């Protein structure tokens, strides 16, 4: 999808951090990507390599930590694990499940030199 825009967002965050905290070489970029977020990790990896060229994170390793999806089942009135937005509740089979966790797309940390 819009992984190119996301990669540009990551580059901006990394460059801003480099400027404000005074480092100019990033070895690893660690992301937290929720299972229910709208990100395709493989596509993001491809875009990441392209977008990071000539930046302080050129050639950096991209580590993607996946965050499992969860939702609030209105029938069971509790939080249940779900792997996709359209998945039913694993306990009662109802589709009345509102995504509550695993929607994040965040830059978690950077390994710098």
């Amino acid at each position, binding site marked *: 999808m819009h992984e190119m825009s996301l990669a540009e967002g990551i580059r901006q965050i990394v460059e801003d951090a480099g400027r404000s905290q005074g480092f*100019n070489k990033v070895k690893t970029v660690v992301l937290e990507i929720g299972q229910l977020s709208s990100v395709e990790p493989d596509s993001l990896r491809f875009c990441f390599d392209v977008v990071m060229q000539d930046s302080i994170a050129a050639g950096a390793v991209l580590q993607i930590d996946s965050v499992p999806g969860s939702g609030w089942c209105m029938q069971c009135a509790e939080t249940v694990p779900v792997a996709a937005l359209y998945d039913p509740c694993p306990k009662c089979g109802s589709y009345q499940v509102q995504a509550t966790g695993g929607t994040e797309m965040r830059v978690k940390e950077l390994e710098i030199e």
Partner: protein
Amino acid sequence: MCNVCGCGTGETRLEGEALDHEHEHEHVHADGTVHRHTHHHTDEHAHSHAPYQWVPAGAHGHTHRHADGSVHAHDHVHEGEHIHEHGDDSVHYGQGPAGAHAPGMSQAQMVRIEQNILAKNDGYAERNRGWLADRGILALNLVSSPGSGKTTLLVRTIEELKNQVPVAVVEGDQQTSFDAERIRATGAPALQINTGKGCHLDAHMVGRALEKLSPPEDSVLLVENVGNLVCPAAFDLGEAAKVVVLSVTEGEDKPLKYPDMFAAARLMLVNKIDLLPYLSFDVQKAIDFARRVNPRLEVIQVSATTGAGFADWLGWIDARLDEARAGRQRTVDQLRARIAELEAQLAAKG
């Protein structure tokens, strides 16, 4: 295309005019220091920057010209040790494998960032939301596949609304201003954003469009996003709600195939229902699929051609307008109360 970031300079256009594009720029000095700063592509500008936290001895200025004709002037130093003092404690020495930091030795360090990837867009979106709220403007972000009938739906909606409330439109398309022209034919002001290679509108583009369009207070702003059921889901524009349009000439299973958009929307309009007699589209199935993704999704069935279901759709907009006005009234009341409080304090002193 901009060859620094690949961001498609000059491709995003507001009514055919290039969106003034602030651009991050980096250059490496002989001593290995890397500078980054923002500038506009077409501007000639001067700036100075000393290496972080360090007073350079023998700094000197120089200018250089870029391929695009912009000229930079800045001070810099060629040699020198780079010492950083951080205002915060985010960079931790002593957490590397050796457990200690030896000066001059390269050591891997972890820096915590914890920042949303779309933070920049979300910041612009909040700014737009505040701007709209201050003026009591209801903004709706209409999203769908290409060809779902969004523009026809908009034209009819404007025709029905325009005697009650002013309506303005922001049109997003990769190319052409055909849609804005169709909207203007209704008498409503419309501004076309061409995203060039971009697949979605972002909050910065919409912010610029708001400045140009300057919709009146207590009005409705309809944003027709780029026809794309995928990318616009992730980009908050500062709208009150996303309205997803699904037409019955598409498949019932679209909500499951493209769940993100249906999850992000507050309302689904099932459009072109006048064509149902000729199709095998199962409306209830489509609604069930959409509610699997988003149990709270509201649904209205409409036909932009015959006007069927429009009373419900216009009623829904009215309810959202009431919310926008009530929100602004609360802000005004709070400000009045604050003014009264301050005046009372002044009177007590004087």
